[in-house]
C-alpha cells in the first residue's frame, strides 16, 4: 500500500480530526488526530487500510508546551508502512478514549502509560498499575517534572 494513498484516504474520511499529515519516507508516515476521534480513526484504519497491528502506544511529555502527546504506532502484517498517530492532551488531568476495543493488545500499553504518565483511558476494561507498585500511582514518574526518589527513600527510612 502506498504511503500517499493512506494519507489521502484518512484525510478525506476524517477532514476535521486529521491534521498536520507528514510523509517521512516510503514506510513512515505521521498525522495528528483530535483526541475525541481516536477510536473511529483506528477502526477505519483496521477495517479499510489493512492496519491490523498496533505496534506500540506511548506518551511523550512536552513540558515546554504544557502538553502530553499520546502516540500510536500502527503497523500492518501485510505492508511495511507504519503510521504514527499523535493525539495532544493537556498535562493536567489528561483523558482519552481507550482503543482496546479495536486493538486488543493496547491493554497493557495503556495500563503502563497510565501509571507512568497519568493518562486516564476512558472505557479501558482494567485500568490499574502494571510494572510499578500500586502506591506509586499519582507520582507519574516518567513526566519531566518528576523529582525522583531521594525524598521518597528518606521518607521510607525514617
Amino acid at each position: 500500500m502506498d504511503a500517499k494513498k493512506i494519507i489521502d484516504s484518512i484525510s478525506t474520511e476524517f477532514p476535521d480530526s486529521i491534521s498536520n499529515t507528514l510523509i517521512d519516507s516510503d514506510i513512515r508516515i505521521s498525522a495528528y488526530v483530535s483526541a475525541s476521534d481516536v477510536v473511529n480513526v483506528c477502526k477505519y484504519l483496521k477495517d479499510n487500510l489493512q492496519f491490523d497491528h498496533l505496534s506500540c502506544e506511548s506518551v511523550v511529555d512536552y513540558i515546554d508546551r504544557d502538553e502530553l502527546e499520546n502516540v500510536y504506532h500502527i503497523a500492518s502484517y501485510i505492508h511495511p508502512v507504519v503510521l504514527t498517530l499523535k493525539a495532544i492532551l493537556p498535562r493536567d488531568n489528561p483523558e482519552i478514549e481507550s482503543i482496546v476495543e479495536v486493538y486488543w493488545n493496547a491493554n497493557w500499553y495503556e495500563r503502563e502509560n497510565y501509571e507512568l504518565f497519568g493518562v486516564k483511558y476512558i472505557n479501558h476494561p482494567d485500568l490499574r498499575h502494571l510494572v510499578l507498585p500500586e502506591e506509586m500511582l499519582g507520582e507519574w514518574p516518567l513526566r519531566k517534572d518528576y523529582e525522583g526518589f531521594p525524598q521518597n527513600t528518606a521518607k521510607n527510612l525514617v
Partner: protein
Amino acid sequence: MFDKTSPSEMIVHIGPQHPMQPGPYRLNVKLHGESVVDLDVEVGYIHKGIEKILESKTYLQGITIVDRMCYLAALSNEEVFCGCVERLAGIEPTPRSKYIRVIAEELSRMQSHLLGFGEFGHFIGYSSMFMFTIKDREDVLTLIEMLTGARITHSYLRFGGVRGDIPEGFEEKCDEVFKSVRKACDEYEGLLKSDTVFKERSVGVGVLTPEIAKEYGVAGPALRATGVPFDIRRNEPYLVYDELDFNVCTQKEGDIFARIKVRIDEIRESMYIIEQALDQLPKGPLFPEGTPYSKRTPVMRVPQGEVFFRVEDPRGEMGMYMVSDGSDKPHRVKVRGPVFPTMQALPPLIRGESIADVTAIAGSMDGCTSEVDR
C-alpha cells in the same frame, strides 16, 4: 487479582521465583479441579526504569544501558538504539561494519534460541535437553566473545560502525562450531520427534491460530509457528539483509512443537546467513571516513526530530521510538519489546487448559521478563 467465587475453586500462585520460569513474574491461576478457569499475569519484579535512565544519559552512554534490557538479545537492543540515533543524526554505517553487525546479531540469535528451547525442555521435565543445548550455546558464546570481547553484555555497536574488527582465526573457529551445532540441531530434532513423552506434552498443546496470534500481537517464532511469514528482516530490511539469502521459517500447526521447530530451523538459517556474510565481507574502514564518529565518539548533539525503528530480535519485532530535542541526551525513548505483547496474550491462551500445561505454554513463548519490565 480475583476472588474465589465457589468452594470448588482454588487460587494457585506460580512465581515470582519458580524453577520453571525464565524470569521473575507471577501467574495467579484460578483452578477448578485441574483446569484453569482464569489467569492473571503480574509483572514488574525487575522493573529497572530503563526508559527514564536513558533520558539522563548521553547517547554514547545509552548503548551500555540498552544492553541490560534483555541479556539474551543485547546485540539486537544495541542495534535498535544505534539505528535510531543513526537515522536521526544522518549517519550511514560503512559496508564492512554493516556485515559485521549482521554476523554479531545472528550469533546472538543462535545463542538465544539454543537457550530458549533447552530451557523449554527443562520446563517440561526433560532436563537433559538443557544440558545438551547449554554446551552448544557455550561454543556460540565463545564466538561472540572473540568478536566483541564479552559474553553477555557487549557494548559492541557504535554510531556508524562497530568497536572492533573481526579477529584473526574467527572464520575457522566459526566453521568448527557450526559443524558441531548443525550436527547437534539434527540430533535434537530427531530426539524431539521420536520422544513420545515430549510429543505428548507439546503436540496440539497451546494452539494459536494465525488470526488470534495477529489479534494478540504475539511476535517472533510464536507468530511464525502459526504460518504468518512476518519477519522484520524481510518485511522492512535493515543493515544488509536485502543482500543476503535466507528463508523466513514458518510452520503451520501453531502449537508448542511448531514453535520449537521454528527455533531449530532459525538456528540453521542464522548459520547460513553468517557464512554468506563472512564470504561477502567487504574490505574497508569500520567508521565512515571524514566524520568525527569513532570508537570514542565525543559528546554528540543529535538534531531535533523523532524516529520509529524496528529490528528483528530473537523473540520478534523490537521497536524503539526516540524523540530528540537537539541536546546531547534523548528527550524520550520508548522501547517496544517483543515479549510485552506475548506475555499479555498468556491469559486467553492458557484459559481452559490443564494446570500441568501452564508452565509448558508459558515457557514455549521463550519470554524474557527483564525486557517486559525494562
